[in-house]
């Protein structure tokens, strides 16, 4: 059981872990609210059912008690009549000389509403006195009547019969009355001799009926009376029972103890309250069909269900609204953070909404991103600056070596009195340095850069004793375009040292600047040894070191990095080479005029 509970809890937890915050909040609030409401509803319904049953039981008990009091009072009244006739009339009379008809008539008249007849019979069934009629019918067999036999059988008691038609006396009006007979064994004195007889008081059945028929138990509830053996004495539908149109559970009810119980009779559940009437042993039975009590349950249940469903529906919407109010700003913030992760550092796109706490969180993230952006731009600036410094330093490293060789060549020319070439070389060197300095600027015109290359080539051509020829061409519209200083010279230097130096025949270097649309190209082409395509591609790859030939490829990479640092990654170098055919290194730059606008 505990294991199962733990498994279920874990399953729910796993399920919720995969769901959004809004879903989790909505479902949790809704489940708690609906379960709470269901518990309240069920407990109220149960309370309603039990209190209704309790109320009905109490009401039935109260009414049965009241009927019992009334019936007991009525029966005791009849018993008092019997006692009066016996103790005040019969016991005081000697039948030989006294007539008891007068006092009996008086008692009858006093109670004639409730009594049909009174009579005193001898042991043989002869009428000694009777009121209001005294002539027996020819057919009347008194001694065989049940009331007579009961009185003789148990002489110490008063006996109440079940309802029957009074059939003793001749009635000139041909009236037949339903009566309940009260009989007792009596001692009769005649001429001093005591004989025995039976005193009969026939009570009008309508007296009992009146006591019971005015009882209102509500709806289809009713009350009935049986004797101790279950024979019906009164029932509101007595005729229907006698006609077999309906049935009653009277035989079984006669065996019930006093109190309330439920029974099922003819597939109908009923609440039955039983009370035994004192002395007679009769049972008063109040019957309330359970459907009377539960009649409204269905409607109440439907109403309750409708209310519960409506309340649940409102709660679900309120929960959805509340959870949305809580979760949506968090979701928006989460999306903003995801954008930041993806590199979008636009702080204005970070949502600041929702409750105070979430707004505060949004503002904090905004401030954090702003700070991060500052830090990142500082780092980038620092890195760029550092890189430029390194590249400038590398560029400046070339100069002393070249200067030493050039000056050595000049010295050699002067020693050989080749003053004219020495002058040319010194002049070119001076111009080279003038352009190199360029007042400290890194950006120069294409014209200046090509002049610089021209001076360098003049010097190198003289150093290499005219072993190669060179041409420099530039389309006129390219000359005013801007370029980074000293990017062509390292390429020309590579052409001389790697392409032409080991060639037997005359080399040729061609530098050409041209424009295609918004792009500027400067090609450095030699007819040297060339190289395989793979080698050409590897020269510009980052992280690779070329081990072929004399160079390390650092010069090419420096140029490439400087171009990309200044103009972006779409610009740079392309190497086109075929073994034994020569090499072209193409510089790709944006065609921008020196003043910074578009050329």
């Amino acid at each position, binding site marked *: 059981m505990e294991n199962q509970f733990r498994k279920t809890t874990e399953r729910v937890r796993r399920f919720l872990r995969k769901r959004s915050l809004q879903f989790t909040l909505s479902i949790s609030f809704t489940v708690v609210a609906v379960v709470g409401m269901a518990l309240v509803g069920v407990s109220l319904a149960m309370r309603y059912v039990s209190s209704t049953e309790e109320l009905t039981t109490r009401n039935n008990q109260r009414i049965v008690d009241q009927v019992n009091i009334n019936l007991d009072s009525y029966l005791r009244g009849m018993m008092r009549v019997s006692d009066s006739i016996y103790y005040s009339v019969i016991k005081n009379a000697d039948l030989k000389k006294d007539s008891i008809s007068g006092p009996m008539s008086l008692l009858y008249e006093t109670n004639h509403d409730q009594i049909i007849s009174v009579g005193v019979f001898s042991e043989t069934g002869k009428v000694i006195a009777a009121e209001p009629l005294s002539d027996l019918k020819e057919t009347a067999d008194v001694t065989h009547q049940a009331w007579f036999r009961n009185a003789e059988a148990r002489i110490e008691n008063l006996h109440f019969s079940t309802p*029957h*038609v009074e059939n003793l006396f001749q009635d000139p009006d*041909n009236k037949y009355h*339903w009566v309940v007979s009260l009989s007792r064994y009596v001692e009769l004195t005649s001429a001093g001799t005591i004989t025995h007889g039976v005193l009969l008081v026939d009570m009008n059945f309508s007296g009992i009926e009146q006591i019971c028929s005015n009882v209102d138990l509500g709806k289809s509830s009713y009350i009935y009376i049986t004797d101790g053996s279950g024979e019906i004495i009164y029932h509101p539908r007595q*005729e229907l029972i006698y*006609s*077999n*149109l309906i049935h009653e559970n009277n035989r079984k009810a006669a065996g019930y103890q006093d109190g309330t119980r439920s029974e099922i009779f003819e597939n109908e559940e009923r609440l039955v309250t039983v009370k035994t009437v004192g002395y007679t042993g009769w049972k008063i039975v109040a019957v309330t069909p359970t459907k009377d009590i539960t009649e409204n349950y269905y409607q109440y249940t439907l109403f309750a269900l409708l209310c519960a469903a409506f309340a649940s529906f409102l709660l679900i919407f309120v929960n959805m*609204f509340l959870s949305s109010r809580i979760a949506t700003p968090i979701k928006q913030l989460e999306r903003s953070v995801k954008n930041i992760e993806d590199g979008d550092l636009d702080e204005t796109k970070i949502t600041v909404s929702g409750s105070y706490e979430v707004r505060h969180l949004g503002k904090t993230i905004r401030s954090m991103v702003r700070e991060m952006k500052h830090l990142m731009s500082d780092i980038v600036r620092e890195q760029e600056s550092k890189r430029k410094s390194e590249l400038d330093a590398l560029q400046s490293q070339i100069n002393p070596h070249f200067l030493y060789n050039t000056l050595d060549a000049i010295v050699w020319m002067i020693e050989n009195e080749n003053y004219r070439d020495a002058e040319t070389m010194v002049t070119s060197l001076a111009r080279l340095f003038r352009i190199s300095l360029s007042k400290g600027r890194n950006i120069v015109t294409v014209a200046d850069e090509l002049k610089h290359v021209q001076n360098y080539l003049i010097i190198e051509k003289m150093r290499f004793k005219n072993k190669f020829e060179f041409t420099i061409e530039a389309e006129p519209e390219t000359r005013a375009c801007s370029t980074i200083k000293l990017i062509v010279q390292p390429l020309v230097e590579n052409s001389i040292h790697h392409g032409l130096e080991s060639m037997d025949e005359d080399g040729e270097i061609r530098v050409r600047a041209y424009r295609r649309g918004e792009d500027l190209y400067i090609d450095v082409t030699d007819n040297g040894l060339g190289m395989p395509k793979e080698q050409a591609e590897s020269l510009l790859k980052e992280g690779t070191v070329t081990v072929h030939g004399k160079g390390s490829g650092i010069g090419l990479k420096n140029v490439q990095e400087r171009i990309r640092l200044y103009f972006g990654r779409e610009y740079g170098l392309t190497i086109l080479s075929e073994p034994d055919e020569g090499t072209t290194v193409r510089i790709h730059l944006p065609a921008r005029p020196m003043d910074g606008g578009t050329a």
Partner: protein
Amino acid sequence: MSKKKIVLFLSFLTLFLLCYLVLNRSIRVTQDAKQTYEVSVICRSENTETWSTVKQGIDQAAKDRNVDVSFITLSGRNNAAEQVTLLNREVENGADAVVIAPVDSGSLVKPIADALKKIPVVAVQSTVTGLSGLETVSCDNAAMGKALAREVAKSGGSEVVVLGNSAGCSNVAASARAIESELKGRNVVFRNLPDEIGKAADMAGQTLAEHPGDTFVALDAETLEAVGQAKKDRKECRNSKIFGVGRTNKVVSFLEEGVVDAVAVENDYNMGYLCIQAAVDRIGRRDDGSPVVNYRIVSRSDMYRPENERILFPFVR
């Protein structure tokens, strides 16, 4: 809140409103189911003891089935024209159903057929022939007639005079046919008495005087009373045997005195109750078939047996 959610919210709200209305309607329908029906009961004579007992059954059924009953008696016995007028009047007045004891199984066929087209009609005690939609509440008159004839047969005597005044009523006719059939081999004579009670009593007396010592069978309670009284009054008729159908207090006292030898008694209370029940069932379009009313043959010796006592002495409340 998004537009979609607002639409959803309003849809649910409408749904709940509809449920509430449907529930209210169902409660109203339940209450309507307990509505009062108006049923008219048209007797075939003036108010008699027999019809008083029938009325008690009607009243009990009216209470049980929530029926408002108009109990209509005729100004005289077996007045077919008056019954037709009353039937038409009750149908026109908007009764939900009519219970009728047709005085003439022939002349009332058409009026009842016309009424049946508008409202349910239930025949009680007697009926008309040839109407398929007409439900009849009565005892098995043929069986009752035969049972009574067997009692007659036990008494001996070869001459049997059958007296009645409602030959047009199906129940009387059925009983008469059954008696004749059961008493084959005996001389059975039929005599029709006038509708007026006084004249009927005189004629019964004359008939009794004309057939001293013969056996007489009265086909209704009023005739039985008249024949019984005639026997009691005329010394020359003391040896006549009298049997009959129906009960009144006087008939019961004649039975107890030995003036009447045996009677066939229908359960009148039962008949009253069942006719209203059948009418309500018909209004509710239920058809459980025509219920049969019980009867008993009661003689002087067994009249106080509980089962006979209950049918012979109905509770008067």
